[in-house]
């Protein structure tokens, strides 16, 4: 599903050049649930951003579902993001003046899905995350866990190939975190590929594979026995 070869990325910080990713080789098969771990500055977010086409790679190659991601301009990136990827952010990033339903329908709006169909689908995904009753509520009226579930529904709405989660539980307490992880596990069980960036050990252990990053290189890549989040809830 994801194939990355010799990925290098550096940032210019004034006169210094910060070499963040120093040759990453990394493959993800369909249906995997991969945790990317590392301390801050290890390059894990940068890797996720490049996979998410929010950032461009310097050298190396990146293939997503057999499509080589090259010559990426903003318009092309936007189309790929819309078609292939679903994002889940640490701070949810819901649009505060839109209701839960409208937020979930937003990726479909950019796919030019007609309004009626869009709302039906959005409601379907809200039901899936257990928030059908909250469809008309604004994000400010939802709890942190509910917001993240709306965000997950939004990420799913466009039926992407891969879900990218950047510290999805970073802003949540542990009980809520496990609920969110349980939801993500269920989504993975249905065959969706997931990439989860986290620095929490227990969250990482709820994935099927852990990739450890340190100073821009992968130091460890191991399969683990998935801990079901439902055991904690």
């Amino acid at each position, binding site marked *: 599903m994801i194939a990355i070869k010799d990925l290098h990325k550096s940032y210019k910080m004034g006169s210094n050049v910060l070499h963040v990713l120093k040759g990453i080789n990394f493959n993800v098969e369909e249906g995997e649930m991969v945790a990317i771990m590392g301390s801050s500055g290890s390059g894990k977010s940068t890797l996720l*951003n490049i996979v*998410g086409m*929010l*950032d461009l790679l310097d050298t190396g190659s990146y293939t997503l579902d057999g499509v080589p991601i090259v010559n990426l301009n*903003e*318009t092309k990136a*936007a*189309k790929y*993001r*819309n*078609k292939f990827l679903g*994002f889940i*952010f640490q701070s949810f*990033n*819901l*649009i*505060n*003046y*839109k209701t839960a339903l*409208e937020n979930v329908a*937003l*990726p479909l*709006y*950019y*796919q*030019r899905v*007609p*309004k009626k169909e869009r709302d039906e689908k959005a409601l379907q995904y809200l039901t899936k995350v257990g928030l059908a009753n909250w469809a008309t509520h604004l994000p400010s009226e939802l709890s942190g866990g509910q917001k993240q579930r709306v965000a997950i529904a*939004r990420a799913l709405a*466009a039926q992407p190939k891969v879900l990218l989660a950047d510290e999805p539980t970073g802003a949540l307490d542990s009980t809520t975190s496990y609920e969110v992880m349980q939801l993500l596990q269920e989504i993975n069980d249905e065959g969706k590929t997931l990439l989860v960036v986290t620095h929490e050990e227990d969250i990482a252990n709820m994935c099927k594979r852990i990739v450890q990053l340190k100073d821009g290189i992968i130091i460890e890549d191991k399969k683990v026995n998935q801990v079901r989040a439902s055991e904690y809830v």
Partner: protein
Amino acid sequence: MIFRRDTWSEILSSVTKNKARTTITVIGVLWGIFIYITLSGAAKGLDNGFERQFERVAMNSMFVWTQQTSVPYKGFKTGRFIQLKLNDVRTLKTKIPEIQYVAPRNAKGVFGGDAPTITKDLKHGKYNVYGDFPVVVKIATKDIYDGGRFLNEEDIKHDRKVCVIGERTQRELFNKNENPVGQFIKIDNSYFQVIGVHKFVQGGGFEDDGDIYIPFTTFRKLYNTGENVGWLAIAAYNDADVIEVEKKVKTVLKDIHSVAQEDERAIGSFNLGEIFNKVQGFSKGLTFLSLVVGIATIFAGVIGIGNILLISVKERTRELGVRRALGATPNEVKGQIILESVFLTLVSGVLGIILGALVLAGINAATQDVTDFPYTNPTVPIPYIVGALLIMIILGTLIGLIPAQRAVSIKPIDALREE
């Protein structure tokens, strides 16, 4: 993109859910277009008002009278007084084809000299008396109250002793509810039958609401004026150049009366057409000024919209980042910002137009009965409104380009990091 219903509902939701921002933004342009509409409407009202003041008088008319000569000519010395004669009328009409009407007039009491004493039973007073031909109403309209009439050709032909009196004359000489038409009044020592009462209208020059009109022929018998004419009221055809006609009239009269052409004093004139043109120029200037001020205010308002959108783009960096992460292309984001700008401009513009129209209607209602102030029917021509709307759409688009460009100049990744 503009024609997708979704695009608009998206914009609608974005502007309606940020009420404070939208309200402030709207007020700027609303105020601008409001000023524009009220100003140009008021200018138009003034314009109409002036026109109404002048509508009683042929707009290309003039008065011509004689004074003393100032240049010796053909053996005559200076200081000679020249007298207009009835024959001059025919000469003028044949020599100057641009002239439509000439009304020779005589008067007693207006230009110095005692006004005749008018007596009705026990009441009496002094009022100006004019000797007139019926044609005078073609140059300065006289409204006659119901039941009466103005002088006619028969009155002239038979030297009838009939008169048209003024509103004030009626008020002062007749009892209330007494119909003056058909009754007799005494002008100096002769009795005249009243045939009509004229309604006084503003802008009729030196005439007033006490004036009495009698047939020209009767006047000359009464005061022994013979062929003499006090002054001439002349109206040129609508398409004639009044100033040119005025010059020709003077040339012809100077010829007839053996006055040197370079004599500036001998023949006096007052050109209503010229005055009217000046007044019209003034109201045109006013209209232009209101247009400039109005459009400048709209400019200021639209720039205000751009300003607020620029701030709001900064405020919405994160939202726009999210939208782009979810698959909005830079053009879609740009389009949204520009359309929001145009939409806000248009909505506030239309509101401003409505508000301005209401205020104009209010002013119109308030000045309905005011006659001594030239202000009638303030309106704004449709092309002005369409023009203003077009300007707003264009300006709204242009000003929207700046925040739109700003919105897409930030990478989505940076936008998402923005706190």
